């Protein structure tokens, strides 16, 4: 049984209302996404900015009310109150911007202790202090950091503080919303290695959201690719990276700047992501796709099983699990 099972999750934002407050324009940020996460598994979610990957995570966590769909936690719907409470406690989040996600007026101790206080898990002051020290130690921060303020730390250290805060409630799963994209390359590795160590030690699951496909591939067992709010491809990490089936995934992987001066790049994907306010009919990728045919303009491709645990939302994606 999956730890978290998202079924047909859709999130629509109202962009404009008329004078009576009725919605005029709507933006579908997440469109019918189904994704599951097993215990101890890392699922990567990639896509370009505005593709809905962060919105999906926030919607699943209940930070935005979902428009439709079901979220199951250990097989039970989180709409049920008791399950929902357990779900919110055991699924935590790490945010992208290490500068904005920590309250500048709180000490590190207060920041890390806040989840514990919210759930009244501390016995007394000394116990709280002790737990905070242990959490900081777990993310390789010295105990004396507890009395300092976030602005005294570098981006990487702040992200560690954010991770310590997420660990405070001993979660089963952490949603990592672009946790490394604001950091320097050498610090990214430190955070990624630490996330892997924590996963190993605590048996955590991760939903790892990023736009750096190479790093997602390194970290995840499975990868989902999103485009314009839709999940267009999902599959085991190695298979998806080395043999992408959806033309968008192919383009995304081809576009990664390789740190190898001998590598010569293939064709560059033309055009730009259309506005999510007016997504194209049929397959949303068809205006940019090099293989577009008549069918793509009319018929919406469904996420098809290609075998080998692979799924792609393309009429012409080839089947089979050969790598």
């Amino acid at each position: 049984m999956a730890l978290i099972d998202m079924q047909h999750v859709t999130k629509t934002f109202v962009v404009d209302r008329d004078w009576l407050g009725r919605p005029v324009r709507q933006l579908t940020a997440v469109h019918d996404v189904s994704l599951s996460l097993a215990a101890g598994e890392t699922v990567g979610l990639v896509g370009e900015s505005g593709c809905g990957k962060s919105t999906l995570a926030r919607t699943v966590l209940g930070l935005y009310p979902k428009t439709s769909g079901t979220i199951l936690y250990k097989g039970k719907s989180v709409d049920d109150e008791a399950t929902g409470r357990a779900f919110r406690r055991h699924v935590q989040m790490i945010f992208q911007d290490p500068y904005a996600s920590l309250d500048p007026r709180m000490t590190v101790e207060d920041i890390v202790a806040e989840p514990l206080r919210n759930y009244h898990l501390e016995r007394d002051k000394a116990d709280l202090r002790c737990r905070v020290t242990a959490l900081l130690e777990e993310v390789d921060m010295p105990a004396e950091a507890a009395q300092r303020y976030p602005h005294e730390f570098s981006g990487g250290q702040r992200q560690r503080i954010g991770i310590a805060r997420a660990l405070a409630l001993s979660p089963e799963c952490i949603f990592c919303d672009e946790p490394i994209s604001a950091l320097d390359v050498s610090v990214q590795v430190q955070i990624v290695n630490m996330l892997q160590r924590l996963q190993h030690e605590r048996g955590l699951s991760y939903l790892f959201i990023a736009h750096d496909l190479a790093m997602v591939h390194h970290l995840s067992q499975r990868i989902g690719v999103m485009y314009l709010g839709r999940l267009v491809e999902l599959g085991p990490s190695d298979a998806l990276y080395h043999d992408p089936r959806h033309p968008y995934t192919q383009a995304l992987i081809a576009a990664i700047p390789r740190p190898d001066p001998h590598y010569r790049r293939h064709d560059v994907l033309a055009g730009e992501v259309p506005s999510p306010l007016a997504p194209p009919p049929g397959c949303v990728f068809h205006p940019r796709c090099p293989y577009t045919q008549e069918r793509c303009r009319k018929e919406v491709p469904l996420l098809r099983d290609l075998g080998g645990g692979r799924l792609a939302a393309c009429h012409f994606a080839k089947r089979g699990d050969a790598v």
Partner: protein
Amino acid sequence: MATLLDVQNLSISFRTYRGILAATHDVTLHVDAGETVGIVGESGCGKSVTAHAVMRLLPAATTIYSSGTITWDGEAIQGYTEKEMNHLRGREMAMVFQDPMTALNPVLSIGSQIREGLTLHQHLSRSDADQEAAALLREVGITSPERRLHQYPHELSGGMRQRCLIAMALACSPRLLFADEPTTALDVTTEAQVLQLLRSLQAERQMAVVLISHNLGVIAQMCRRVYVMYAGCVVEEGPVEAIFDEPAHPYTQGLLASLPDPAHKDKILTGIAGQAPDLFHMPTGCRFYPRCRQAMQICKRQVPPYYTTGTGHRAACWLLCPEREECAWH
């Protein structure tokens, strides 16, 4: 090939509330006509400051030029008046900035912003400038340029805006283009488009490009020669193949070891421990020694000189010191 830009021992610091901030230390680099040179390093390493110093875009009141010379086309330009610099900035060198949203003025149309450079430096009439601007937009791959001239920055996407910035920079056919993190704010597929555009423009116009980036992939794909900067110093420089295939400085090695290798998914990344030094409290000696796994006693005391390696590039590291071999330690 003729040397276009020559920077020698440039040291720059800034006066701030907290004290003196050391931005660059003894930066030496040169750019030949028509070549693409990369400057790579993490945030705060001084790569942008160097470029801004050459174009004299740093705030005059708080910037201290402690040492060094900047030579453009054989002429020292540090003594230039502001008027002479303006002339140089528009027609000889230009810059493309990182954030295409803030680098464009939101209340002016694209056309008038491109025209500005054309009328200022080339004294074109309004209609000629309009035609020229449309031609520039076409050159940077913008469709229906006549219509775009009347649009405002917020009506364009990020990639489109970056193309407009490039068009503005090209307006007076500069001989050197600084591209300061031109694709950092863009998505991967748009980044690929803009890099391809820069590459083709460079080839067509025979213009020198200095590409500043933190992304090793971008540098590897674009440049012929590379300068690696750390904490205000150039730690390694040389042809791109040499730097990527056989990095000599432990910092460069660490940077490359920070990138995941798609062929070996489960290999643990080594990376670099610790964090970049506080620019207000630079370590003595080699600035990288606190993070260096191979640090030696001398690294803490003395700044390493440049040594030439077997593959013909230079690195500032005591590990390459010939005497190290001679002093048989063991």
